[in-house]
C-alpha cells in the first residue's frame, strides 16, 4: 500500500483507500472488485476500484439529477466554483506531486503537471461568463422578429479520460464540460488513477454540487461500451482511442444520436490544447424567435 512515511520512521503510515466518486460520495465499487496498481518494481501501490456497469449507471443517474440545477447556476458562480477547485488543488499540490511520482513520473515533470492543471482550471474558470458572448449571436432575420442564438449545455457527458496524462488530461476534459453547465462521468486513466481519485476529493471540497462530476476507475476495455451505449448520455468524449475502438464507440453512440468527440494525440501539457472550442464542443445552439410587432 501507498507508504509515504520516510524509511526508518517509527510511525506506521495510514494508507489511503482509493474509492470512486458518485453523486458527491465516495463508495467502493458495488462489484467489490479491484485491480492492483503496481509501481515499476512490481510492488503494489494501491488497490483500485474496478468499477462495474452498475457503478456507471449509478453515476449517470447522479449526473442527470445534478445537471439541470448546475446549468441554472449563474455563469459567475460556475466560474467561482471552478476557481475554487484550482485553489483547493493548489493547497494540495505536494500530495498530487507525490502521487504522480508514485506512478513513475519524475519530480520535475510531476510538478509541471500539477501546476499546469491548476492553471488550466483557472483558465476555464475565466471562460465561464465569456464563452456565451463569444459564441452566441443576434440574428438579423428578414421578418419582424427578435431572433437570437445562445449556447446551452448538451446535458450529461461521458468522458474516457486520456491514458497517459492522469491528472492534467482528466482535468482538461472535465473542466470545459462542466464550466458550460454539463454534468459528467469520467473514467480515469487505468494506469495512472491515483490523482483522479484525489482530484475527486478536491472537487468534494470545492462547492461543486454533488453529481456534477463523477469519477470512476476501472478497466477501460470493460467500460467503454457502457459509456458509448448508455441511452441517458448526451455526449461522449473519448481520448486516445485506436481505430477499432473509434468505430465501436461511434456505432454504440448512434443508438441515441450522441455527440461523439474524439480527442486523440493531444499534448495536454501544451497551452495550445486549451481553448474555448472545448467548451463549445459540449454545447447546443438554441435559437429563440419572438415577434417584434410592426
Amino acid at each position, binding site marked *: 500500500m501507498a507508504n509515504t512515511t520516510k524509511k526508518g520512521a517509527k510511525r506506521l503510515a495510514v494508507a489511503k483507500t482509493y474509492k470512486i466518486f458518485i453523486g458527491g460520495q465516495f463508495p467502493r465499487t458495488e462489484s467489490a472488485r479491484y485491480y492492483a496498481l503496481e509501481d515499476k518494481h512490481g510492488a503494489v501501490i494501491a488497490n483500485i476500484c474496478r468499477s462495474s456497469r452498475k457503478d456507471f449507471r449509478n453515476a449517470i443517474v447522479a449526473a442527470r439529477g445534478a445537471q439541470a440545477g448546475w446549468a441554472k447556476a449563474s455563469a459567475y458562480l460556475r466560474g467561482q466554483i471552478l476557481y475554487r477547485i484550482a485553489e483547493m488543488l493548489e493547497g494540495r499540490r505536494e500530495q498530487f506531486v507525490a502521487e504522480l511520482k508514485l506512478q513513475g513520473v519524475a519530480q520535475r515533470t510531476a510538478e509541471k503537471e500539477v501546476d499546469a492543471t491548476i492553471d488550466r482550471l483557472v483558465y476555464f474558470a475565466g471562460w465561464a461568463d465569456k464563452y456565451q458572448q*463569444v459564441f452566441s*449571436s443576434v*440574428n*438579423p*432575420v*428578414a*421578418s419582424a*422578429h427578435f*431572433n437570437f*442564438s445562445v449556447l*446551452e449545455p*448538451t*446535458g450529461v457527458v461521458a468522458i474516457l479520460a486520456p491514458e497517459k496524462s492522469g491528472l492534467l488530461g482528466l482535468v482538461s476534459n472535465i473542466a470545459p464540460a462542466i464550466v458550460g453547465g454539463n454534468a459528467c462521468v469520467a473514467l480515469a486513466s487505468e494506469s495512472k488513477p491515483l490523482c483522479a481519485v484525489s482530484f475527486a476529493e478536491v472537487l468534494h471540497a470545492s462547492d461543486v454540487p454533488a453529481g456534477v462530476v463523477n469519477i470512476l476507475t476501472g478497466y477501460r476495455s470493460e467500460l467503454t461500451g457502457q459509456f458509448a451505449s448508455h441511452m441517458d448520455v*448526451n455526449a461522449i468524449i473519448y481520448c486516445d482511442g485506436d*481505430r*477499432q475502438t*473509434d*468505430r*465501436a*464507440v*461511434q*456505432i454504440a*453512440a*448512434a*443508438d*441515441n*444520436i450522441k*455527440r461523439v468527440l474524439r480527442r486523440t494525440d493531444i499534448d495536454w501539457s501544451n497551452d*495550445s490544447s486549451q*481553448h*474555448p*472550442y472545448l467548451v463549445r464542443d459540449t454545447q*447546443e*445552439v*438554441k*435559437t*429563440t*424567435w*419572438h*415577434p417584434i410587432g410592426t
Partner: protein
Amino acid sequence: MATPENKLAFDGGWQYSPAPESTDHVKIKKTYELFIGGEFVAPVQGKYFDTINPATEEKLSKVALASAADVDKAVKAARKAFVGWSRLKPAERGKYIFRIARILQERSREFAVIESLDGGKPIRESRDVDVPLAAAHFFYYAGWADKLEYAFPGRAVKPLGVAGQIIPWNFPLLMAAWKIAPALACGNTVVLKPAETTPLTALKLAEVIADAGLPPGVVNIVTGAGETGAAIVNHPGFDKIAFTGSTDVGRIIQKALAGSNKKYTLELGGKAANIIFADAAIDEAVEGIVNGIFFNQGHVCCAGSRLLVQEPVADAVIRKLRDRMETLIVGDPLDKNTDIGAINSKQQLETIKSYLAIGQEEGSEMFQSSCAVPKRGYWCRPTIFTGVSQSNRVVQEEIFGPVLAIQTFRTFDEALIKANNTPYGLSGGVWTDKGSKIFKMTQSIRAGVVWANTFNKFDPTSPFGGNKESGVGREGGMHGLDAYLKLGG
C-alpha cells in the same frame, strides 16, 4: 343560463372560385439525367424512375436512377473541382453564389410551380416560403465566402473537401439551398441527392448552377432512392456527410460513418410541443397551432405536432381550433386559395393513415374537418386527437402529416415535463403574454429552435437544428458554417 356561442358562420354557403396558378410558363423535360461534372449525363446502368404529381397521380417526368458507379463518377468530378474551387479567391467564390441567388429570384415563379407540382405543397407556400427562402439562403452564404475568418475567433479555417448531401422531400429546393450554399461558401464541392419523390427542383437548380457559370463538378446532383443515398454514405471519397431525414435513417448513417473520420451533420425528426398558457392571446395562438401543424401538410420535422394547452382555456382553444380547421381548404396545390395540399406520396399517406388507426386504437378521440377532398391524388384532412396520454404513440412518434395530438396541463412544470418527455429535441413553441414566463419556458425546453408567440418561422441567418435524437449540428446562420469547415489552431 347557457348563452348561445358566438360563432362565425364559416359554413355559410360561400364557395371560393378556383384560382389556379398557370403552368404554361413552366418547362419540365420528359427525361432528366444526372448532373455530373457540369453536364447532364445518362446513368451508367441506364435505369430511370418516374416522378409523379401527388395531387393527380400523373407522371411529370422520368428521372435517372443513380447507382454506386454514378455516385463514384460524381465524387471524382467533385474531387477534381475541389482543387480549383477551394483555391479560388474567396470573393470570387462568393460572386458565383450570389449569381445563383439572383437567377433563382428571376425564375422564382417557375420554381414555385414545379415545387408544388412535384411535391404537392400549396402554391402559396412554395411561392412565399420555399423559393424566396432558398434564394435568400444562397444570398446570405454568398456573402460569407470571403469573411470566414471572422466567424471563428482564434481559429484558422479550411474547407473540408467533398460533401455528400442527402435531402428529404418536404422542402426539396429549400433543403438543397440549405445544404449547397454554406458548403460552397466555405470552399467545398458537393454531391447532392434529392429525395426520389421530389427530384425536379434540384435538377432545375442544376440548370441554374450551370447558367451561373460555376466550374464543372463544383455541384453534382444525383437522383435516386435509398440505395443511392447508401452509396453516398458508404463512398470513401467524401469528407463530410450532411443528412436531413428521419431519426431512424440518421442512426443508420451515424453507424455507417463510424470510424471513417468523415464529419457529419444530421437534421432528424421531431415531435415539438406547442404550449398554450391560459394568459396567451388565444386567437393568435389558434393561428399558431394551425400554422404549426398544418403548414406543408404537417410534413415538417419541426412541426408543432403536440399541443399542450392549459386547462382553463383548453375547451375554448379546442373549440376555436375545430372551427378554424373547418375553414381550411384542402385540394389543388396550384390553387392560390389552397391551405393544405397533397400528401407527398402514397407511401407517406399510408404511414399517416396507420397513425390515424393507431390513435383510435389507443383510445383517443379523433376529429377531422369535414371538407371535401379531390377523388384522385393523396389527401389527408386536418386531424386532431384529444384524450391522448403521454405514452401514446401519436404523442411520442413523428407522424409527419397534418395530425395533432392534444394534451392539457395545469402547471408550468407539468407542461415542461410533458414537453421534454420524448426522445426528440428539435423545436418547441410557447404562447403567453407574460415575458418572464416566455423566457423561463424557452430556456427550459430542450430543443434547438423555440418559437414564442409565433411558430414555424425560418430565415437564412437563423441557426436551425436539434438536440437529443433530433440530430447533430446546426444549419443556417453563422453557426451553420461550422458544418463545412475544419477549424485549425
